[in-house]
């Protein structure tokens, strides 16, 4: 492979890892922006998404002929089920600590322990791999892009766009933004705060589950797969300014590209080091994030 091809290939990988990061981070960002909850268990919902896809698609539980359709349905069902779990977690575990960010961080770690151990008990420690319904590769000017990776990018872009338009253009989205801005004033306008919280948590968690379900066929599924992405997702939302969706998208691309290029040309460890150092530098220079308002 020539250098140009390597660079192009790295670029494609960068787009894919950015897309997954954006899926995870946008949910995290939504939850923080609206509820002021730093959801430390977010990576575990990503992991549950992966397990959902493995269970429904990899284990062939769905009676659908076409494998692509079966995969899409599996992802949808996984998103809904995991989102429901997220809503329950928010309602019964996070809500009693509203307004106390530090307490929610600790509760989040508790939820993290519980979810990790539960899946470990249920499914065992062994990595579970299964094939993607998309096989083969697309060749563009000498660079081969595997279809499974392309599918991640396309699905990720679709989910993020739907979420963005939901928040920007619908009435429910408007009420969510109103709650994020001023809870009290929003409730005076007749917005049901509790329902808005549940909705935000549901959407945020569904995005994380989608990320997990999309990545599962490419890598593998295990109970601890959520530990690393959550750290990177934190970096993304801080870079983007916590609570800002467009910022999160840009932050996701920054982190995704740094990671893929530094991994290819230096080493994966240095890539992560650069990402985390970047976070610390940004926090020191611009505590509100690159696109934050503070």
């Amino acid at each position, binding site marked *: 492979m020539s250098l140009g091809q390597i660079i192009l290939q790295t670029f494609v990988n960068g787009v894919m890892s950015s897309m997954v990061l954006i899926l995870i981070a946008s949910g995290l960002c939504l939850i923080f922006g609206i509820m002021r909850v*730093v959801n*430390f268990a977010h990576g575990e919902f990503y992991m549950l998404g992966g397990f959902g896809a493995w269970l429904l698609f990899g284990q062939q539980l769905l009676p659908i002929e076409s494998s692509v359709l079966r995969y899409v349905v599996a992802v949808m069902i996984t998103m809904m089920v995991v989102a429901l779990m997220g809503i329950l977690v928010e309602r019964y*575990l996070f809500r*009693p*600590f509203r307004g*106390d*960010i*530090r*307490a929610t*961080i*600790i*509760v989040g*770690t*508790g*939820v*993290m*322990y*519980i979810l*990790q*151990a*539960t899946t*470990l*008990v249920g499914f065992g420690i062994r990595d579970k791999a299964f094939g993607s319904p998309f096989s083969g590769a697309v060749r563009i000017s000498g660079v081969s892009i595997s279809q499974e990776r392309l599918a991640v990018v396309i699905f990720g872009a679709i989910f993020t766009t739907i979420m963005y338009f939901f928040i920007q253009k619908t009435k429910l989205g408007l009420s969510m933004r109103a709650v994020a801005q001023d809870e009290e004033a929003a409730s005076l306008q007749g917005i049901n705060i509790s329902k808005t919280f549940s909705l935000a948590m549901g959407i945020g968690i569904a995005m994380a589950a989608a990320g997990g379900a999309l990545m599962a066929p490419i890598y593998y599924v295990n109970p601890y797969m959520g*530990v690393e992405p959550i*750290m990177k997702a*934190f*970096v993304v939302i*801080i870079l983007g300014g*916590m609570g800002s969706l467009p910022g999160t998208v840009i932050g996701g691309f920054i982190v995704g590209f740094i990671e893929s290029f530094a991994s290819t040309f230096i*080493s994966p*460890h*240095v890539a*992560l*080091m650069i990402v*985390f*150092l970047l*976070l*610390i530098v940004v*926090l*020191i220079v611009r*505590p509100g994030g690159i696109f934050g308002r503070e």
Partner: protein
Amino acid sequence: MAVNKLNNKGFVLFLFLVVIAFLAPLVITNSYTLHILITIFIWSMLTLGIRLIMLVGHLNAAQAGIFGMGAYASALLAIRLDLSFWLALPLAGIFCALLAIPIGYPTLRIKGTYFVMATFALTEVFRMIWMRWSGLFGGPRGISGIPRPDAINFLWLNIRFVGKVPFYYLGLILMLITIIFMYRIDNSRIGKTFRCIPQAELLAECIGINILKHKVIALVIGSFFAGMAGSFYAHYSTYISPWDYTWMKSTQMLMYAVVGGTSAVAGPVLGSFVLIGLEEWLRPLQEYVPIFTGVILILVLRFLPGGLLSIPEKVSGLTKKEGFITIPKRIRAFTKR
């Protein structure tokens, strides 16, 4: 009533527990039980450090990274420079304390939520450094063959560090030093200042308290003891690897502190003792253990915001529900002065 001073009853209880702890190895001969107790001593030191920075209103997630830095520093001093453990131990502490200064000044400036994430990221940065530069740090395989402490030959004392018992006493003494130091801090002027910072940051600044400086001091003290704990751990287990110091370990320390309660020095020690003891007791259940600890953590946060320490007060029904960290009334008066 003083902020946190032990009354006579508390002092007697403390002495009683110390005597029991010193006599324990006469009864406990099982080396596995001793190992668990040594682990509890190490984690108590770490958690006590985390409590101090919690008092100024921050959740420090870099403690696991600092712990690792202490362990690596001490191991390298002993292996590369042939230093004795007795010199490497304080040097590792001092190294970590110094390291905390450049970490603290920029990161403690930022808001609490961001501080947590920056320190989590820092722990990962440290880990990547140990993984990457394998020539010095041994990479993912870590460092093995760390020498055990040299024998002590002093007057009639002749202690050789073989088996668990000498390590038990060394760990116990290190933990007691930490406890006494933290207790002295709690009751000094600086400890009172620490406690008033999260209550009214602006007010504290207005009456001339240098908030950033105090936060950094809290971090430096906590890091010093974390470094010592790391050094002790490295020479006790004779093997360290980057996987011992992930950010998950930091969440564990935070958990012990919260479950034990942060209002007094006894809290983190109690939390480490109860939770590590419980994990060991439940060990036959294997994978189910984190479920129990997670549930206990959430239940404690929900129904005992002051941690296990607040059980006596809860039982006698004296206290009203307060926030995440229980602050006695006198401190409020102090901040309003």
